[in-house]
């Protein structure tokens, strides 16, 4: 049963990261105050990080 809860927790975390990471990256880039490009770059980096995290989780579960 605990592995099911762990899966729910990890899957939820991976999914929510898709929302939070780009937003965090966007505001981090905006905080730098160098125009809009760092903000968008931060959002893209956040999205990439969330995607990478998801792939790692899926690879671990599939083993």
């Amino acid at each position, binding site marked *: 049963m605990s592995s099911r809860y762990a*899966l729910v927790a990890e*899957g*939820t975390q991976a*999914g*929510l990261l*898709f*929302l939070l990471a780009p937003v965090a990256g966007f505001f981090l880039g905006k905080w730098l105050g160098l125009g809009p490009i760092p903000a968008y770059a931060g959002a893209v980096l956040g999205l990439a990080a969330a995607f990478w995290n*998801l792939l790692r989780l*899926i690879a671990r579960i*599939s083993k």
Partner: protein
Amino acid sequence: MIFSTSDWALLAPELLLTAGGLILLSLAVFVPKAKEEFLGFLTVLAVVATAVVLAIVAVAAPRSQGPVLGGMFVLDNFALFFKFVILLTIGLTVLASITYVGQAPYPGGEYYALLLFTGVGMLFMVSGSNLISIYVALELMALASYVLAGYFKGEVRSTEAALKYFILGAFSSGVLLYGLSLVYGVSGKMGLSDLAQTPVTGDGRQLMVLGILMLLAGLLFKIAAVPFHVWTPDVYEGSPTPITAFFSVGPKIAAYAILARIFYVGFPRFYADWGLIIAIVSAVTLVWGNVAALLQTNVKRMLAYSSIAHAGYALLGVLGFRTGYGLWGILIYLLAYAFMNFGAFSLVIFLETRGYAAESVSDFNGLARRNMPAAVTMLVFLLSLAGIPPTAGFIGKYYLFTAAMKAGYAWLAVLAVLASAVSLFYYFRIAAAMFFSEAAGARLRASYALAAAVIICGAGTLIIGLAPEGILAVLKNCVPGGY
């Protein structure tokens, strides 16, 4: 009560589809198993002919006259839209079934006839303007569906699916009918427009609300909303996969149509009583559907729980029907859902027809190397189901979430966004298996009929996502009771 010829002319699509089903039943006796593909294409022809007749009726019939046939039947733009979507889902189901049923040791003639009879029930459902006519049409759809669920009668899971569907469906129909009886007992009316105008006060109001809630419970069963969803995973898993694909789309869309019509036309004055309940049901359905899907490794059960979650999203449109976005959201979301969900199931059918059980996510391993177009279209469907732009699912969810916020349920819109994010995990699990896992097996090719179904679904998913303005302009005229 005397019905005019023009009233009966409005029934031409339903009558044609019924005739098609009866002809198929008769022909099935003479067509050998090896030639049953012919019956499948004949069924597609019947569906296309019905769509053409529907288009003629839509252009020729004066739709400003309101309900006809004793107030039982209405052909407004709302009903027309859903009729076309229902015919689309039946056509896609037949295309996806031709190879699948051909490979199975069961006769195909009755299968296609039952699909058409289910379609007749759904066409009458979306045109129902009287609670009794809606109920009778719903039962016609349901009875044919029960048989389709158990069509592979030699397989225990199929028989179990049919039995569970029948027992729980009959129970929910009983609850729905009891609700209808309470509504009639208090108001003395069955017509939706009459119900909206009938004053109800005092003790009668409490009974009316109870009747409305029981009616709602019966309808929530049909759309597989929590806590009336328990039949869905087992029925979806046990039924033949083309029928599972059909159940996940067709009857659910028809049930949403009557849910929207009943509560928009019949009970808008009671919004304060049923609004919060639908909000809570939507929230629980969203969360439970996505959490349960996270735990699944069986693809059919995963998509079943996914469809439960999508029932939760669509309820946001019912909640926000008094804003412009609510009804538009329901319409465009259900159209998008028809394409993307059926498309996803079509790829499961594709693997099953190529010898895979297609039950585990691992059956999708390396699909990109075995058939790249299939993997790419599956990715499009998964992205759309998750609500990622520029797909149809994103457009639909945008309108639904906006409707919820404008209706004063911002917390529900936020919860829906979070639930959509969580769904990325199990959708991407399939995508990762397709693109990043080792391929096992030779290259796979689909039959032309199944490929046509997948292409239609993929095109619909992308067109709605990339260029929604055209379809939205049409949908803005599709208000129930608006002629």
